[in-house]
């Protein structure tokens, strides 16, 4: 149990669109262990984002059981889930989602705003996180003064600065060129080892999938393949 970060049993997510019911996910069973690097694969519309949102405790399942870090997502309250996300999860988004009026370091600091640490510690840790992603010389740049790859690095710094257990990344490289995409991927790989963090990402990019040590293939809301690959 200690080793299981995410446990999913017979999970379904139903969207009601007028009279039509759309099952975005149907009968998913999945266990993700600490330190894994899992890629959710599948065509557009296959349910990757829906599943990631559920694992990220951003949404509630229609049916089935979802445990994230021992927390039952269906029964937990909004505040508990927010606290869980703030302390144990890190998010990386396709379009970086940085706060435009904040500098790189301020964006990172924002992740620590509710932590019981001093201002100086918050700044030290944020600076260290930016150093780690290779942006030590860009701390006071605003997002619009940074390239796409740099922005995603800031976002990753924001996602790791509070030492999460699980990083959730929805198409983290889709908005980047090949070179930046592989650099970001490399960075996530390194961080996973350094910080012993679990990474779950969604992508339809073969390059990304080749880097993962486990690929979960979705199609029409159903897992059609789940296999480990390569050596970890």
């Amino acid at each position: 149990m200690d080793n299981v970060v995410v446990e999913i049993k017979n999970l379904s997510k139903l969207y009601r669109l007028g009279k039509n019911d759309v099952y975005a996910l149907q009968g998913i069973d999945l266990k993700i262990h600490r330190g894994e690097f899992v890629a959710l694969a599948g065509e557009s519309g296959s349910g990757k984002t829906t599943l990631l949102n559920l694992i990220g405790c951003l949404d509630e399942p229609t049916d089935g059981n979802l445990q994230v870090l021992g927390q039952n997502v269906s029964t937990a309250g909004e505040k508990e889930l927010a606290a869980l996300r703030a302390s144990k999860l890190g998010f990386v988004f396709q379009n970086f989602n940085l706060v435009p009026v904040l500098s790189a370091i301020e964006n990172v600091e924002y992740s620590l705003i509710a932590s019981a640490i001093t201002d100086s510690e918050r700044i030290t840790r944020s600076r260290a996180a930016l150093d780690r992603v290779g942006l030590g010389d860009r701390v006071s740049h605003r997002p619009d003064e940074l390239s796409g790859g740099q922005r995603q690095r800031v976002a990753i710094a924001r996602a790791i600065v509070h030492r999460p257990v699980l990083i959730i990344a929805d198409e983290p490289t889709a908005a980047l060129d090949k070179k930046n995409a592989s650099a970001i991927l490399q960075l996530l790989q390194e961080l996973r080892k350094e910080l012993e963090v679990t990474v779950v990402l969604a992508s339809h990019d073969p390059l990304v999938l080749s880097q993962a040590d486990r690929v979960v293939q979705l199609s029409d809301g159903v897992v059609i393949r789940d296999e480990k690959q390569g050596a970890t």
Partner: protein
Amino acid sequence: MILKLAIRNLFRNRRRTLLNILIISGGFLAVVIFQGFAANILDSTRWGAVNSQYGHIQIAAKKLWEKQSEDSFSDQQIKDPKPLQRKVAEISGVKSVSSRQTFYGLISNGDRSVAAQIVGFEPDIERGILEPEDVIAGEPFRTAGGGSSNIFRVAIGEGLAKIIDAKPGQNLTIIGQTADGGINAVDAEIVTTFRTVIQEIDDTTVFIPIELAGRLLDTDTAERLIVKLEAHEMVDRVLSEIKPLVGPEVRARSWLEVARLFNQTEEFFASQNAVVATIIFTLIFLSTVSTVSMSVAERTGEIGTLRAIGRSRSEIMTMFVAEGILLGLVGSFCGVILSYASASGISHSGMTIVIPGASMPIPIVIMFVLSAYVTALLATAVACVLATVVAVRKALKMKIVDALKYNI
């Protein structure tokens, strides 16, 4: 961090922020100017009322206050007013105590006669009535100068003078009813024609020395004592000091109890102020709702992201409310400066206004009313905070996953 975010977000869309600040300060200005203007009119009315009509405190027989028709004339009078007058005059803060006798009579200057309100007063003690600036023809109205003939003089209101075509220098006959019900008449010289700020007085009133009134009515009582004070605020204290001095038949009342017109004016302005303030703060509220709503709509993705990374609804609300408050503060600050500058500008411009019931235009002066500024400040703050809450609450109801679909 919250303040930093608020400032930067406000700067992010300068034009929109500026527009909102403009609306807030404009509203602020309107409220302050309107209230300052009203306060000035009230204040002049108040001084006018106190000076020329009511005094700060009036002392009269209880039966006069109660005005029962079966009471006789003498029941409604203060008997032997002089000692009371002297004692009240010794209370600190009292500027003057004078007696008055008001009654209705006929006045005539030969061919024409007309009913008039006759006010017997003590022109040498009671200042404020018939000040030199009220005199439009003849001489200032005084009796001092020695010799009993000096009491046979009257001052006639401008409107009344016109009706009977009376001029200073002419004789006027006043006919009235004596204390025991007989008819009596006295002759006096018109020495003054006057114009006060209150047209009603000018159209109906003849002022005469109280000694002349005593002669006409054949009495040495007084209808009432008029007490004038050094400041409006002393009324309550002096009232309480007068109480033990008067007998059981007599009661002292503050002018506010007596002055119906003033009370109505005050109520009128109070409700006007409230209506204007409500309209303006509604405007401020609505414009802030629209500003914040636009900002919230643009920042839906940001809100979703912040919530995703664990920020609570209340933290996000706080962030926006800080913006709202800041907007309100800056707007109010500009409003204060704008209002103060415009108020002194208007006050010094020499513009005048004609108000109903006043006989001449009075200068427009915008009084500095601290409470107007404070009210405007508080109301702006409330309007801005409320507007933010209204605008943001909707966005916070959205599910995180839906908010995340918006680009940041």
